[in-house]
């Protein structure tokens, strides 16, 4: 008999949701976290989309540790001296059932883990899982930890150990490693008085702002972001690893460059750095997806590369919560039917395919590559902003040129081939349309 029914490794959003489901299904579940408390190792940009929690914690918004509700979302395309912004506001997003919310991960992840404990899961912190145990048939049968006598056996192990998932790698569930599938996220949490944030970002109360930026990462392919918390703002970048490694500017220098941009400086000026942080993102979507189940093991969240990082979308927490929840359901089902082999755990893949988790990834499968492509990163920002500049510039006594003429001239000047523009436009329509 195994020690417990299920071991969940990692108390991030994926692990805690898996543990909640299993504990409520009456399974004996242990949730192991290497940090001193859940969330202590976790860093992200700043916005969670918790709608999926309706299925686990009704009216979660009454109790979740939220900073602000995002009611204003801007997408900014910039060059060193210009910026073109699409600015969207919806007051509906500031009231139940809400849309996105800013939150600190050490708060949010700890809160979610509390729900797992309340449901009956046993949470063990300050414990690093160092490997998987296997039975005579090669099925995963438990984990090894760095505690004295630290072996623990279970019918199923759910690996929710994040982007580096050494458990998935040990089990051979990933294909060939490619650093180009990953981006480095770096950010600064800057302190500013609440009324200053409200004024600069044009919001009141607990309304908040999400700004996504393209064209702000120098020679590195990637993107930038600014999110408002109550009395801090998060400013950061995501940077494609091989490109970052192949040039000269360090991550914090690239952040300094963004903060100095004329469109950004007035927003961040005077903000005192409260915390500098970094974390990796699995960025390549469906094209890097590992095998999601093995005999006695399931992968969920970033460990399964299920983070959706498609340019103006950076959603990982909701994909982690959902995949963790479905992994928990599939594991409970497999234990009930006394078959925890790959075949017995097939309910996991089925659930992911039937819901947004894999549907969104399949729909947006071309998006990560397109958004991080050299043209979108290094040519289109100059093209779009210079078209805007010429449209809004008054060149009297010259008459106004037609928009078509401006577009054709700027396309040529920037050096974009018509063929490529059409191709990327089509790829964009296919992925986002």
């Amino acid at each position, binding site marked *: 008999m195994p020690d417990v029914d299920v071991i969940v490794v990692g108390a991030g959003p994926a692990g805690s949701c898996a543990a909640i489901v299993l504990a409520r299904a009456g399974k004996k579940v242990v949730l192991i976290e290497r940090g001193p408390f859940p969330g202590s190792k976790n860093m992200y940009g700043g916005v969670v989309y918790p709608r999926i929690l309706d299925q686990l914690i009704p009216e979660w918004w009454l109790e979740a540790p939220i900073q602000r509700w995002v009611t204003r979302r801007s997408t900014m395309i910039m060059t060193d001296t210009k910026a073109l912004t699409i600015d969207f506001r919806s007051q509906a997003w500031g009231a139940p059932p809400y849309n996105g919310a800013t939150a600190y991960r050490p708060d949010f992840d700890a809160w979610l883990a509390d729900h797992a404990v309340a449901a009956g899961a046993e949470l063990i*912190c*300050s*414990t*690093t899982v160092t490997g998987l145990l296997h039975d005579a048939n090669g099925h995963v049968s438990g984990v090894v930890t760095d505690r004295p006598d630290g072996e623990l056996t279970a019918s199923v192990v759910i690996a929710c150990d994040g982007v580096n998932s050494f458990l998935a790698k040990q089990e051979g569930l990933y294909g060939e490693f490619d650093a180009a599938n*990953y981006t480095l996220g770096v950010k600064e949490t800057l302190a500013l008085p609440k009324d200053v944030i409200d004024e600069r970002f044009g919001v009141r109360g607990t309304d908040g702002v999400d700004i996504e930026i393209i064209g702000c990462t120098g020679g590195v392919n990637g993107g930038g972001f600014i999110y408002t918390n109550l009395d801090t703002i998060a400013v950061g970048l995501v940077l494609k690893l091989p490109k970052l490694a192949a040039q000269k500017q360090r991550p914090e220098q690239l952040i300094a460059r963004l903060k100095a941009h004329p469109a950004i400086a007035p927003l961040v000026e005077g903000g005192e750095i*409260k915390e500098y942080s970094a974390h990796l993102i699995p960025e390549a979507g469906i094209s890097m997806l590992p095998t999601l189940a093995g005999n006695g093991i399931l992968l969920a969240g970033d460990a399964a590369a299920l983070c959706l990082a498609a340019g103006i979308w950076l959603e990982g927490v909701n994909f982690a919560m959902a995949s963790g929840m479905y992994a928990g359901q599939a594991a409970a089902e497999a234990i009930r039917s006394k078959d925890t082999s790959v075949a017995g755990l097939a309910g996991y893949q089925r659930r992911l395919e039937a819901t947004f988790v894999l549907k969104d990834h399949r729909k947006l499968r071309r998006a990560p590559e397109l958004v991080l492509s050299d043209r979108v990163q290094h040519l289109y920002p100059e093209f779009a902003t210079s078209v805007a500049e010429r449209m809004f510039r008054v060149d009297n006594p010259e008459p106004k040129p037609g928009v078509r003429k401006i577009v054709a001239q700027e396309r040529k000047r920037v050096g974009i081939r018509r063929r490529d523009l059409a191709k990327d436009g089509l790829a964009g329509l296919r992925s986002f349309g």
Partner: protein
Amino acid sequence: MIESPWPEISFEDRIGTASFNVHHTAHIVVDGKVCADCSTRECIVACPANLFVPTSDGGILFNYEQCFECGTCYMVCNREGAITWNYPEGGYGVVFKRT
């Protein structure tokens, strides 16, 4: 290049804003012999914690203490055996607060 309109803080002050519960044994070990032959040195520019420092004799000085445990270094390094990478013992290492 855009000039910063206000002074940037030193890297020491920057990394000092994050909290680390340092264990006495290193979770990442870098083999200086491998690094000595490396001309590309991806780790130096990419490590967000600036922990890989080139020395005057062409080597690499590495200190594990103020590490984000992100994984960037072992991913960008192309040399087999240069970096032995593990998580710190449970409960040790970086502790994020407002991230």
